[in-house]
């Protein structure tokens, strides 16, 4: 729409539909208007901030920024496409309702934001500070390096003294400003009495600085502030990168849905108003439009309405709620708008907390990462120990000159870089997680990757995992139906959302034209549909299942069974191929609550032996099965199989309510189908390879480098060049294989 308006604007004949809506009138009260002012331009005009809904492409920016061309009372408008916020400067004579109408008539939904109600994002603030620290460190590092190279190249006399003092001066901003997050981390680690990398970094940073000063003032030797600043700078950069990826990965989920700055419609004293989500309190009345996902738990205040609850309970069939019933965040009104009275704020809802906790734990629990950290600390400790021992050895036992001994120790301290492990590990995991999110796979923690790696068995739940969960009409009895019966069946199922209705509509899709109109058409969800045609009661009902491998429903005419329909679940296209590949590496089995006959039929079509195909299992049976088979990866329903998923070595929820799945399972597939499993295994494979290469490289690099330094083969200058090079190698290595 924006594009067509834009064309009209170019041609000079833009005619906007005149809005006579009065819903914006509340904006014109003086009290309201004064609260919305966000600043004043040099010309005395007021500036307002708006949230704009409905932005789609670049043309929207173009159109909204040309508001001054459309209305003379608008002086300027600036849009931030990403934040969906617009700053607008208007004449003091222009009513705010007119602004809203103008923007609305262009096809967008404007929401004025009150002054002081822009929500501050703490994660963003931390990132901003970090960028400033990196900028300062980068500046100091560049200059220190330049000066240090002159020193290594053999400058002496007055110049050397001046250069050295300048280096020390330039190092202070790094030590006192850029590195301060490490000291905070070190304090925390001291309080908790645990060795954290921040503590090691802080100690080595301060100690090395003091040693460097000693070297310069007392022993009259080279300093190594250049490598110290490079060390600080690179660690800061790597932290920023990790955080950035974390943020990006997280943004796609809870923060996107529960973006605390987004406008919600409230009802205050009978008047509609817009608030940012973060300011909604318990007891407030919120209005959610059709298809807008509920963001708070609450009681339904408006009339009865149908809600899609698939995010909550995984059911595709909508449910009807009546006044006074409790609704949960994540439901979606599909009938029309609904009003709720908030009982729990967005950040206390089940959906939010489970989404959040799945994201927070995300790197913390990995044993593998802890081990990598420990190896890093050991390398660092060893290097310090070797340095301490070898200095007297060099001077007293080997009788080397002090300057030579110091030069070797210096190279050793400079070249040792366990940080490759400390940040290479988390980065590798962050990249793997990001890649997984891109493929619609939610991994709850880094730990889950470790466990995927040690999996020996894979257990499939049948429905929806190996099969599509979509039914297909296999046959009918009698096998040929007259046209009127087909039309009747379609009419009965015309408004049903049940899988069987979809299957019937799909089977009889060649029946076009008007369907007979039934009186009192009613659906009892999950049980039956019925209606009256020409005085006869017709119904479609589930009937007792016989021992065949198919699902059966029947058409009844006044309670007499007339036609039987047999349905079958369809095998996913990719299942066969994938299972053949997996069989080479893992023991495969099927655990299903379904009839044994059906499970065996499925197993044989997938070339899984009968003894590994188990049917008619209750959730408890599945749990027992998992307990008997350690190192099992279980793919199943996040709700029904939650106990088994939790106990499994790796629990993967392939369907079911998201909030539940995130709590119980290690991994959730958002896309149906088994391709996600294939993706997950390949991501894990790449991750493990990258981790191995990084570990091998770091150990080999440090071992060789330390030895070369001890034998005096590497000068401090070469060491200072090699250290960041090794870090860069590790950085690029961590990303390998993840596009």
């Amino acid at each position, binding site marked *: 729409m924006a594009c067509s308006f834009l064309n009209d604007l170019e041609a000079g004949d833009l005619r906007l539909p005149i809005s006579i809506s009065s819903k914006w009138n509340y904006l014109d009260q003086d009290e309201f208007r004064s609260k919305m002012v966000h600043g004043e331009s040099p010309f005395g005009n007021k500036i307002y901030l708006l949230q704009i809904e409905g932005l789609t492409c670049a043309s929207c*920016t173009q159109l909204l920024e040309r508001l*001054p061309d459309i209305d003379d009372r608008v002086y300027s408008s600036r849009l931030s496409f990403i934040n969906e916020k617009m700053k607008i400067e208007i004449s003091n004579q222009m009513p705010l309702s007119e602004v809203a109408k103008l923007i609305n008539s262009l096809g967008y939904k404007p929401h004025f934001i009150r002054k002081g109600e822009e929500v501050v994002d703490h994660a963003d603030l931390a990132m901003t500070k970090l960028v400033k620290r990196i900028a300062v460190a980068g*500046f100091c590092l560049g200059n220190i390096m330049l000066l240090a190279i002159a020193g290594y190249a053999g400058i002496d006399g007055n110049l050397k003294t001046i250069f050295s003092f300048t280096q020390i001066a330039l190092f202070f901003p790094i030590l006192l400003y850029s590195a301060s997050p490490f000291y905070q981390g070190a304090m925390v680690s001291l309080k908790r009495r645990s060795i954290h990398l921040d503590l090691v970094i802080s100690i080595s940073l301060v100690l090395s600085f003091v040693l460097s000063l000693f070297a310069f003032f007392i022993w009259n030797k080279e300093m190594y502030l250049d490598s110290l600043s490079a060390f600080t700078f690179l660690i800061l950069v790597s932290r920023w990168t990790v955080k950035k990826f974390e943020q990006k990965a997280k943004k796609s989920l809870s923060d996107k849905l529960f973006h605390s700055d987004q406008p919600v419609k409230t009802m205050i004293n009978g008047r509609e108003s817009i608030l940012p989500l973060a300011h909604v309190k318990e007891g407030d009345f919120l209005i959610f439009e059709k298809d807008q996902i509920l963001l708070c738990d609450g009681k339904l205040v408006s009339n009865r309405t149908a809600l899609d609850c698939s995010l909550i309970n995984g059911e595709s069939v909508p449910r009807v709620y009546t006044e006074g019933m409790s609704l949960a965040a994540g439901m979606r009104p599909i009938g029309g708008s609904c009003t709720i009275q908030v009982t729990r704020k967005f950040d206390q809802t089940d959906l939010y907390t489970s989404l959040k906790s799945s994201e927070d734990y995300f790197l913390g629990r990995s044993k593998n990462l802890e081990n990598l950290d420990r190896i890093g600390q050991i390398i660092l400790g060893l290097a310090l120990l070797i340095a301490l021992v070898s200095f007297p050895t060099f001077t007293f036992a080997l009788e080397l000159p002090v300057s030579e001994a110091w030069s070797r120790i210096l190279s050793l301290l400079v070249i040792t870089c366990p940080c490759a492990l400390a940040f290479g590990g988390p980065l590798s995991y962050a990249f793997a997680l990001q890649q997984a999110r891109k493929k619609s796979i939610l991994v709850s923690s880094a730990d889950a990757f470790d466990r995927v790696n040690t999996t020996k068995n894979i257990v499939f739940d049948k429905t929806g995992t190996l099969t599509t969960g979509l039914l297909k009409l296999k046959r009918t009895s009698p096998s040929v139906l007259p046209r009127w019966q087909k039309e009747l069946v379609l009419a009965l199922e015309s408004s049903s959302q049940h899988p069987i209705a979809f299957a019937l509509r799909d089977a009889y899709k060649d029946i076009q034209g008007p369907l007979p109109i039934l009186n009192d058409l009613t659906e009892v969800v999950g049980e039956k549909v019925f209606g009256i045609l020409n005085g006869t009661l017709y119904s479609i009902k589930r009937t007792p299942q016989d021992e065949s491998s198919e699902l059966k429903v029947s058409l009844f005419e006044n309670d007499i069974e007339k036609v039987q329909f047999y349905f079958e679940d369809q095998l996913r296209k990719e299942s066969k191929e994938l299972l053949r590949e997996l069989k080479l590496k893992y023991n495969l089995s099927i655990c299903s609550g379904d009839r044994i006959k059906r499970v065996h039929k499925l197993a044989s079509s997938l070339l899984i032996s009968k003894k590994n195909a188990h049917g008619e299992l209750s959730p408890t049976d599945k749990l027992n099965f998992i307990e008997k088979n350690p190192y099992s990866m279980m793919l199943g329903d996040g709700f029904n199989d939650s106990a088994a998923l939790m106990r499994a070595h790796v629990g993967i929820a392939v369907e079911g309510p998201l909030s539940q799945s995130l709590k119980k399972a290690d991994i959730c597939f958002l896309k149906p189908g088994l391709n996600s499993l294939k993706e997950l295994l390949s991501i894990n494979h790449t991750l493990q390879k990258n981790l191995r290469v990084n570990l091998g490289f770091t150990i080999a690099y440090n071992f060789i480098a330390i030895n070369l330094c001890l034998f005096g083969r590497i000068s401090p200058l070469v060491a200072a060049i090699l250290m960041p090079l090794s870090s860069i190698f590790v950085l690029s290595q961590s990303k390998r294989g993840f596009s």
Partner: protein
Amino acid sequence: MSILILMLPIAITLGAGFLLAFLAAFNSGQFEDLETPAHRILNDDKKEGYKS
């Protein structure tokens, strides 16, 4: 070589100037939205922006 003594403060002042320029730009929010300006450049600017 003594020219270096003059050049050193000049170099550092220059560098610090750029650092301050960056920090000022960063604080003013120039790096917050990197997408919209890319759209904005496609706009015809015959009447765009300020009118007073």
